[in-house]
């Protein structure tokens, strides 16, 4: 029973990613991500130039333009997401402390981390807090539900629209469907990467296909 539950948990987290479905794989993956991320931050121009050189000389200017647009889009998105995560984490931790829910800081941190995933993240972030509150009383759980609802309303109507101003617009239906597709294929990791990947794909399709077709007519 326990082994089966562990196996199912691994499947939910890593989906069909074979290298990342055990503790060693996840740790080495995290190590790779952090170090590769540091190297990219130390000298981004080197990697960018390398990617441009992979494209034939006749299309290099377009490639540079597209890469620049992708970098700007992702930078706007990550800036917005990081700020939203921080604000949501702090608001949740403060609210849960005020309501007297145990482990408020950890639950706030989890809710902040889940805010990385648009639309579905807030629901996932609310589940453990509701569980903890239910161990005290159903009334407390109701208060926690309204707290998350209020924070979600403020976040989606005030914070996110302000933060995501410069980013390429992603249609909500398309985003949710793509999130479902990525979650079905790759589990929670796929869900976490769905929005940045969709933003990249949208820039690529716009620049390499839609604009060309529009110019041809």
């Amino acid at each position, binding site marked *: 029973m326990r082994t089966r539950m562990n196996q199912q948990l691994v499947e939910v987290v890593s989906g*069909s*990613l*074979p*290298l*990342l479905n055990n503790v060693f794989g996840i740790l080495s*993956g995290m190590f*790779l*991500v*952090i170090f*590769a*991320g*540091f*190297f*990219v*931050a*130390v*000298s*981004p121009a*080197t990697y960018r130039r390398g990617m441009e050189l992979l494209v034939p000389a006749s299309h290099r200017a377009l490639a540079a333009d597209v890469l620049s647009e992708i*970098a700007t889009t*992702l*930078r706007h998105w*990550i*800036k917005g997401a*990081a700020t939203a995560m921080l604000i949501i984490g702090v608001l949740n931790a403060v609210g849960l402390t005020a309501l007297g829910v145990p482990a408020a800081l950890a639950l706030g941190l989890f809710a902040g981390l889940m805010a990385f995933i648009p639309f579905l993240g807030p629901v996932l972030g609310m589940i453990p807090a509701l569980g903890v509150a239910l161990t005290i009383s159903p009334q407390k759980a109701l208060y926690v539900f309204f707290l998350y609802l209020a924070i979600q309303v403020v976040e989606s109507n005030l914070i996110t629209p302000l933060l995501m101003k410069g980013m390429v617009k992603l249609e909500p239906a398309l985003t949710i469907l793509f999130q479902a597709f990525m979650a079905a294929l*790759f589990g929670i*990791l*796929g869900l976490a*990467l769905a929005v*940045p*990947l969709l933003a990249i794909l949208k820039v690529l399709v716009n620049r390499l296909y839609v604009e060309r077709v529009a110019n041809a007519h």
Partner: protein
Amino acid sequence: MSRTEPAPPTRVDLAFVARATLIVIGLWALASGLWLGRDILFVTLFALLVGLFLSLFVGPLVKLGVPRQVAAPPAWRSRCAPA
């Protein structure tokens, strides 16, 4: 009233079929390659996001006059230094 002429039928010759087959095989090979390397692609995309997140802090520091590689350990600096 003007009536538009129907478009002439497209000729399907061997070259057209060969080209279409090659495109389908190419797309299938690309999709298979992406599927085989999905772990590495995930790690790369996460690393790119981490790099972009860090560059949000590196950019303002560089503007303040701090050298870009000042936070990196010496081993990194020697590897990242331009030739």
